[in-house]
C-alpha cells in the first residue's frame, strides 16, 4: 500500500501538496508543518522581474471564503534562485515552481532560468495572469493564450509542466490546448474572480479593487471541473480549491485528480497536510487499495448519466 504517485511527470511521495501562494517560497513552515506529509512543495508565483504586488488591504474574509489581491508580489526569478536555492535544494522532495509573466516570452525566460536549476522538479504555469498585449484578458481565458504560453515554455525547458487554470465555461477547449502544447498535467482551479464593496465608503474594499475567491465554496466548482475534465480527457489532474478537511482531498481523487493542493485551508490549519496524509492512508487501507492510483476517478465507475 503506497501513497506514492507519478503526477504530470513528477514522482510524488504523497498526493498532498501546498497550493501556490499560500506556502511562501517553500520552507517558511518547516517548524510548523510535518513535511513528510507533502508530496512536493509548490512556491508562490515567480516572474521575470520583481513585483511589489498590490496595495493594502489585500485580504477580505467572506462567509466561508477568502478574497485575496496579493497581486503576485515576488522578488523576481533571479533573486528567487539566489535567495532560496540553498534551502530548497536541501529538501528531500520535489520542488514545483509556479511561474507567470506578462507575455509568452516572459514566461519562457523565467522557465529558461529555472531549467538550469537541478532542484526544480517541475513548473506550474499560472495562466490566470492578464495578457498585457491582449487588453488584459487572462492568457488562460482563450485557446490562443494558452497555446502561446505553454508552447513558449515547452520550448524553453524539458522539465515537467503543469498548466494551472481558473474556472471557465470553456475549460475543455483550454485543457485540450494545454495538453496539445505539451503540458504534462493540468491544475484545477485557481481562484474565482471576486469583488466586494464597502457601503460606507462606497468604494471596493480591496486596495486593488478586484480579487480572487478561495476557500471551502470553491471546492465544489473545482470538483465539478476535475470530474468533467477527467471524464473527457483522462489526463493527469491536480485538484485545488477549498480543501479544509481530509475528506475533501479524497473527494478530489475520486473525481479524477492524481494529487491535490491545499491553499486557504492550510493557511488556517497548517496541520491539515498531515491530517490529509493520514486520512488518505486509512482510506486506502480500509478500501484495500494498493495505491492512490487505484482510487483515481472512482466516482466515474457507475453507469448512470
Amino acid at each position, binding site marked *: 500500500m503506497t501513497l506514492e504517485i507519478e503526477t504530470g511527470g513528477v514522482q510524488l511521495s504523497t498526493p498532498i501538496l501546498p497550493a501556490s501562494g*499560500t506556502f511562501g517560497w517553500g520552507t517558511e513552515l518547516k517548524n510548523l508543518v510535518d513535511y513528510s506529509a507533502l508530496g512536493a512543495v509548490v512556491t508562490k508565483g515567480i516572474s521575470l522581474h520583481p513585483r511589489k504586488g498590490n496595495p493594502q488591504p489585500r485580504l477580505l474574509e467572506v462567509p466561508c471564503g477568502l478574497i485575496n489581491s496579493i497581486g503576485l508580489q515576488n522578488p523576481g526569478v533571479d533573486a528567487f534562485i539566489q535567495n532560496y536555492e540553498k534551502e530548497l535544494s536541501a529538501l528531500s522532495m520535489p520542488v514545483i515552481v509556479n511561474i507567470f509573466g506578462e507575455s509568452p516570452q516572459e514566461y519562457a525566460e523565467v522557465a529558461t532560468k529555472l531549467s538550469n536549476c537541478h532542484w526544480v522538479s517541475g513548473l506550474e504555469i499560472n495562466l490566470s495572469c492578464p495578457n498585457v498585449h491582449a487588453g488584459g484578458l487572462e492568457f488562460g481565458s482563450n485557446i490562443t493564450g494558452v497555446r502561446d504560453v505553454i508552447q513558449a515554455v515547452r520550448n524553453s525547458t524539458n522539465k515537467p509542466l503543469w498548466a494551472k487554470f481558473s474556472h471557465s465555461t470553456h475549460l475543455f477547449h483550454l485543457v485540450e490546448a494545454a495538453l496539445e502544447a505539451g503540458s504534462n498535467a493540468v491544475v484545477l482551479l485557481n481562484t474565482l474572480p471576486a469583488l466586494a464593496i464597502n457601503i460606507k465608503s462606497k468604494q471596493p474594499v480591496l486596495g486593488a479593487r478586484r480579487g480572487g475567491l478561495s476557500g471551502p465554496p470553491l471546492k465544489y466548482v473545482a470538483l465539478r471541473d476535475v470530474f468533467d475534465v477527467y471524464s473527457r480527457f483522462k489526463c493527469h489532474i491536480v485538484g485545488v480549491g477549498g480543501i479544509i478537511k481530509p475528506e475533501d482531498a479524497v473527494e478530489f481523487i475520486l473525481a479524477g485528480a492524481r494529487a491535490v493542493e491545499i491553499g486557504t485551508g492550510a493557511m488556517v490549519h497548517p496541520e491539515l497536510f498531515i491530517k490529509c496524509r493520514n486520512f488518505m492512508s486509512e482510506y486506502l487501507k480500509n478500501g484495500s487499495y494498493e495505491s492512490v492510483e487505484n482510487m483515481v476517478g472512482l466516482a466515474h465507475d457507475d453507469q448512470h448519466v
Partner: protein
Amino acid sequence: MRDSPTHFQLTITGNEKVGDRFFLLSFENPGVSFRPGQFAMVAISGEPYPLLRRPFAVSRTPEGTLQILYRVVGTGTRLMSYWKKGRKVNVIFPLGNGFEKIQNACILVGGGSGVASMIALARELHSRGTPYLLCVGTKKSGELDPHSSVFQNPPLNVKFATEDGSFGFHGTVLDLAEQHIHSFTCAAVCGPPAMMTAFLERFPDVNAMFSLENHMGCGTGVCLGCAIETRNGMMRVCVDGPVFPGKILLPEHLK
C-alpha cells in the same frame, strides 16, 4: 528566549468582561517562552466559519497565566465573547518578532484595541523595574475598566485619556502622551492607522517602535496578505513585524 511557533490546544481559565467592549481571556500556560509584542493566531471555531484565525497579542500575568485582552469589533471577537472556562482553543503561538528588550525609560501609547499590544510590554517593564508610563486612550469612559486586573495585576503605571473627557485626561491619547514624552527616551505605539500616522508626524524625532495590526491571512509569513511597503522594501507584518521601528515606516502605507 522565543520558542518557535507551535500548535496548542489551550484550556480557557477565564473570559472576563473588563469594559463595555473589552474582554480578558485567560489560558493555562503550556510553558512557552515569548516576547511582548508576539502574538497568537486563534482559531475561532472548529467549523469553516469564521474561516480565518484571528491575531491577538499575548501577555502573561505575574503568576504565569497567558492572557489575551480583546475588543469586540466583529464576528470573530463577538463569538469569542461567548467562550466559557474549560473550553479548549486551538492557537498557533508565539508568532512575530515582538519587542526587543527595552533598557531605557519608555512611554507606551495604546489606542482602542491597540492597548492590548502594550500590556505585555508594560508588564515586562514593570517586573524588570524599567521606568515606563502606559498611556491608554479610548473614546469615552467605561470602554476599558481601569480597576480590572488588566491594569492591576501587576498594578501598572498607567494614565487614561478619553476623547470626551469623561474619564482621566481630556483629549486623545497623543495629547496625553505629549505631556509626558519628554521624560522618556523611547516609545512603543499601537493603535488605529490614523493614530499611528499622527504619532509619526507629531513626534518625528522620538525613537518609537510601532506594533501594527493588519488583517492577516496566515500569520506565519506564507500568504503575503499582510505585506506593506516600508523604507526597507516590502515587509510582512506577521513575521518581519508586527513591531517595526518608526523610521522605516511610510505613513501612506500604514493602511
